[in-house]
């Protein structure tokens, strides 16, 4: 089997804290994405999912330190200098952000913004060819000529997110990282955008790393899932298996917390108790231990045992 498109091994990130403290934000993330594969990183605020994406993209904030291994097609990304990154970002790896209004330039027509990466990375012979390619991409994501020539504020939220996807595709990336691409959208548009991303992955043989807090929405629209909490992978697996039988107490709690449509007004609700731990509260033990019904002293003191599927001392393999 060939090497995966993206490979991340034992990724640790420390962030600068108050008074010179170092906060251990990512604690040994392993993940890989193959061409044509869709992996979702699922986590709540503070779980480390966005930090993982930023580490992969070489966009961590100043003062952050990274150890581990991040490679794209076998090429080490952690040692790249900024010049080398500029040839890579937007070209081999592209990113779609949560809020399209902040990622799009308000003063430029959508078409011009999609043409920019095509011109920058010299993917078209001339301006008119670049325009043709940009128009074709915008048509592919479902925007017509009039919308292509519009300014971002003239488009709806869903149309803007489509424009942003077209922009990300313009550099013909091998890997697309989408950070909460649907959070700002209505339920129906969320589904449409995720389905579009899935189609594009299949058509272009890209890898997709999808970042989301919404397990229910994402799970049926990706190949594999990794559930993050407190900077660690709590559970991972292929999506249908994990969905059919979540095994980690955190995954189970997250799944049970959703109200079920059709289960009625008086259905029991099972909200998770407590709060997601702040970075400053994380110790060496399992980050979920303070909220976990199964936690023992060992869970508090020692890092969780990872068996390839879940990171947990108490649930037997």
């Amino acid at each position: 089997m060939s090497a995966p498109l993206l490979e991340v091994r034992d990724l640790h990130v420390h962030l600068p804290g108050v008074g010179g403290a170092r906060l251990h934000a990512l604690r040994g993330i392993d993940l890989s994405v193959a061409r044509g594969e869709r992996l979702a990183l699922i986590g709540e605020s503070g779980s480390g999912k966005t930090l993982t994406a930023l580490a992969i993209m070489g966009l961590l904030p100043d003062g952050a330190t990274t150890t581990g291994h991040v490679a794209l097609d076998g090429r080490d990304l952690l040692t790249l200098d900024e010049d080398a990154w500029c040839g890579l970002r937007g070209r081999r790896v592209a990113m779609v952000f949560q809020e399209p209004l902040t990622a799009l330039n308000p003063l430029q027509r959508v078409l011009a913004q999609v043409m920019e990466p095509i011109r920058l990375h010299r993917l078209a012979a001339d301006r008119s060819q670049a325009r043709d390619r940009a128009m074709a991409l915008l048509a592919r994501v479902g925007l017509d000529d009039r919308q292509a020539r519009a300014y971002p504020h003239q488009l709806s939220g869903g149309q803007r997110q489509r424009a942003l996807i077209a922009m990300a595709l313009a550099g013909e990336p091998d890997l697309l990282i989408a950070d909460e691409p649907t959070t700002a959208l209505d339920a129906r548009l969320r589904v449409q955008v995720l389905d579009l991303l899935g189609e594009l992955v299949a058509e272009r043989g890209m890898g997709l790393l999808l970042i989301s807090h919404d397990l229910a929405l994402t799970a049926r629209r990706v190949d594999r899932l990794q559930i993050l909490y407190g900077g660690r992978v709590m559970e991972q697996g292929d999506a249908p298996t994990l969905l059919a039988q979540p095994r980690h107490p955190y995954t189970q709690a997250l799944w049970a917390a959703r109200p079920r449509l059709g289960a009625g007004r008086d259905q029991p609700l099972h909200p998770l108790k407590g709060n997601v731990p702040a970075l400053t509260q994380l110790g060496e033990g399992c980050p979920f231990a303070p909220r976990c019904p199964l936690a023992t002293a060992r869970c508090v003191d020692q890092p969780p045992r990872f068996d390839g599927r879940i990171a947990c001392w108490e649930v037997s393999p």
Partner: protein
Amino acid sequence: MSDASTATPPLLEVSGLGQRYGGRTVLRDVHFRLPAGRSLGVIGESGAGKSTLARLVMALERPSHGQVRWSGRDVNAMPARERRALRPHVQMVFQDPYGSLDPRWRVGRSIVEPLSALPMTESQRLARLAEVLEAVGLEADAATRFPHQFSGGQRQRLAIARALATRPRLIVADEPLSALDVSVQAQILALLRELQHREGISLVIVSHDLAAVEVLCDEALVLRGGEVVEQGAVERVLGEPRHPYTRDLLAALA
């Protein structure tokens, strides 16, 4: 609804309600009656007119057509002084809790601020502050901190505490869950349902989250492009939707 025969006017009644901004109609001919203790879910996508309806119900703007009645009285026809006197009974919770928490104020001050309109002593206000913090599951010492010192879910609890302070009979909540993590959404959902049961509060929830509407509401109203396409009991609207648009919304979640 079944109380039409009784003499008590409903807590909230909306009839022929419409709104135009400039030449554009954003809401047209909305009717509903909400008896005290019952809750309504307003469902629809961006641009459907949901937030306009919420603002009209709150009397934060005047409609171009129709009436909003609080306990039988047209809020746009009464003198301003009278409307101010009724305001404490109707409160609002926003999607972004910063909509009701001043970032520069300690949160205790934001929570008791709506009480300034009421004839209460300082010690009564502080007692109410402690009560509502407890009601939303926060420690009493939360009052001395600033909004940025809380998580998103805690901030939404604080916004709900502020809305509760005046003992309202109706809370209008505009997408109160959509900025929150899924696990926190469940906590806020459970809190709102508990408040309905314990305090008998009526909610008007504006949401595109159909499961949340099912859990919190008795009645549902589906808006599209400013018009009501379907309304009725929640179990009927979500269980046996008649309008293709409602069916579409439900199918997207399957």
